[in-house]
């Protein structure tokens, strides 16, 4: 029994990390209707920025400054790379985001070298044991931060004028422009906010993973995609539930289903994407897209 609980708890801890990156994917999708393959590397890059800053500043100052830099960087990416191709087919945009992935990865190696690094955690990493199950405050912290972000995002999108503008600009740019929404500014804002979320994901993931390097987000990105699609690509709550659920499912299958073992954990995640797309394309919490024709 303790074993089962331990696997669930450690699945939730991994799931918290998938969820935080899945949230960033969801946000950028909501705000710009783009699936951003560069999201993981944006998170990785800002994690390195935070690491550099944390060498000179107290943790929370470095944290705050990193978020500011992430916002500016995300908005700049939108202005420089995405805006010039806004009328291009979706495949072109996807290709450019893959270019962002490769470019940021190389740039980070150029600046920071290849050594693994370590980032301190804002939460205690000391193990806590209750009834034979071990976890740390950091595991709880990662999940708590994800949930807090969902709450803030929900308020922002549903209860503020800017949030309304963001949603409008993404869904119907020309009509939004007619009613006075500054669509360009909204898109840049969306990318900036997604970069901030990615930065938070990186800052949560790096201490949880023990060490980080330029590849830290690549395996996580795959699980984050699966989580976002499981929960519904336009639902922040879905991303969190999807992430936590995926972490637990993958652990339990890996532990108790011998066929899956260690080898088939990733294929299981990909299978989940496939099944969800076949059975419920909008995901668990997503809304079906209704289009008037």
């Amino acid at each position, binding site marked *: 029994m303790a*074993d089962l609980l331990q696997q669930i708890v450690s699945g939730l801890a991994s799931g918290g990390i998938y969820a935080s990156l899945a949230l960033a994917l969801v946000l950028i999708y909501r705000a710009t209707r783009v699936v951003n393959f560069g999201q993981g590397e944006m998170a990785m890059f800002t994690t390195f920025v935070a690491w550099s800053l944390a060498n000179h500043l107290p943790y929370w100052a470095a944290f705050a400054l990193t978020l500011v830099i992430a916002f500016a960087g995300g908005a700049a990416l939108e202005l420089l790379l995405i805006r010039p191709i806004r009328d291009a087919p979706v495949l072109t945009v996807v290709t450019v985001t893959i270019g962002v992935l490769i470019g940021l990865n190389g740039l980070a190696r150029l600046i920071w070298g290849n050594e*693994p690094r370590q980032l301190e955690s804002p939460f205690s990493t000391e193990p806590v044991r209750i009834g034979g199950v071990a976890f740390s405050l950091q595991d709880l912290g990662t999940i708590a931060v994800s949930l807090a972000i969902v709450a803030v995002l929900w308020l922002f999108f549903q209860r503020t004028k800017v949030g309304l503008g963001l949603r409008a600009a993404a869904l119907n740019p020309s009509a939004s422009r007619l009613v006075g929404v500054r669509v360009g500014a909204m898109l840049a804002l969306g990318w900036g906010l997604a970069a901030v979320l990615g930065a938070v994901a990186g800052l949560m993931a790096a201490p949880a993973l023990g060490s980080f*390097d330029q590849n830290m987000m690549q395996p996580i990105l795959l699980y984050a995609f699966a989580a976002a699609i499981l929960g519904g690509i336009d639902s922040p709550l879905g991303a969190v539930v999807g992430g936590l659920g995926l972490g637990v499912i993958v652990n339990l299958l890996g532990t108790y289903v011998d066929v899956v073992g260690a080898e088939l954990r*990733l294929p299981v995640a990909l299978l989940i994407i496939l099944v969800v797309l076949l059975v419920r394309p909008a995901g668990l919490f997503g809304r079906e897209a209704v289009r008037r024709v």
Partner: protein
Amino acid sequence: MIRKLPFLACALALATAGGAQARGEADPGVTSTTITIGGTVPLSGIAAAYASVGRGAEAYFKYVNARGGVNGRRIVYKILDDAYNPANTVQQTRELVQQERVFAVFNSLGTEHNLAIRQLLNTLKVPQIFPATGATTFGSDYGRYPWTTAGFQPTYTSEGRIYGRAIGQMKRRARVAVLYQNDDYGKEILNGIRQGLRFAGRGGRVVAAESYGISDPDVSSAVAKLRRSNADIFVIAATPRPAIQAFIAANKLAWKARIIVNAVASASNTMKIVAASTGKRAEGAVSIVFLKDPNDPKWRNDRAIRLYRTIMRRHGTGDANDVYNVYAMASAYTFVEALRKAGRNPTRASFMRAVTNLNIRNNPFLLPGMRIRTSARDRFPLDQARLQRWSNGRWISYGPLLSPR
């Protein structure tokens, strides 16, 4: 007309003989002033941390060239970046052999990557020297692949056997749990441990073994599963990132087993991260060592390590505390020694004979007492190592040189 024929035939025969002689004098890659070799190393991508395996060798060759080269020839070492993708390795190795006309392929990195080019190089009779991998097949399958040698390190099987024997000495009837990467590298270490435990004959056995995939974000689930076995020795046969996670997970689960960590993940900078994340849990961890670690204060005034630092300063790029640079120089040193022994005008064949007849006692970058010995039937340049123990933030080597057999 008819009378002219014998003369023509004679001239043709002479020309052919002359051509053959010219070819015999100089194999591809060898000129009167240079000898060109090459290899692939990941300078970018997922395994770019190993870039120093190429860069360190490059620095050593530059140092040799600055001192007059080998028999008056400068060594030109062409490194291509395969980004750790075997498909690139194949294409770039073709480029090295067919366009750059390299004399030999040296120090190409990765198990799958070297497997992917082995047939090609042997078909073309191009030496494949000291591939940077611990897979046993490169040294043992010389019957089918006579132009290939083993890597410049104890094989993964040897490393596993050394751990197995050492565990036997640590404890009677030891219960051993192993975390291993689910590929040939991980499986070789696991099998080596089982063999070493048998050789030790003290009743130790592997009671649990769990694998992980290289794309798994973390290994805590596998460690939790191993924990259930109540093993008293935990062997981590993993690359640095999952190895760090395994230490953290063992600490979180309050698993008191003694930890053995494989050489792939035992670089000091990796262990420092482990120590920072788990406090005392890293203390007493055991691994093997066969190189002089530039971080070990024991070697601070050692002549070889001083030379190493000078070479890094003058010719190197990157971090002089990165032990992979030392590995690269130890391998390049041995390559240069073999080249010296291959004659004033080396051919690929004479070079292969030299590489498979080495007896070097004083490679300065290796631990004192280590000997490099090869023969036509033993193509493993090294199989000895010492144990080292992590203590107060650094590795301390102890005990005698161990051999897997």
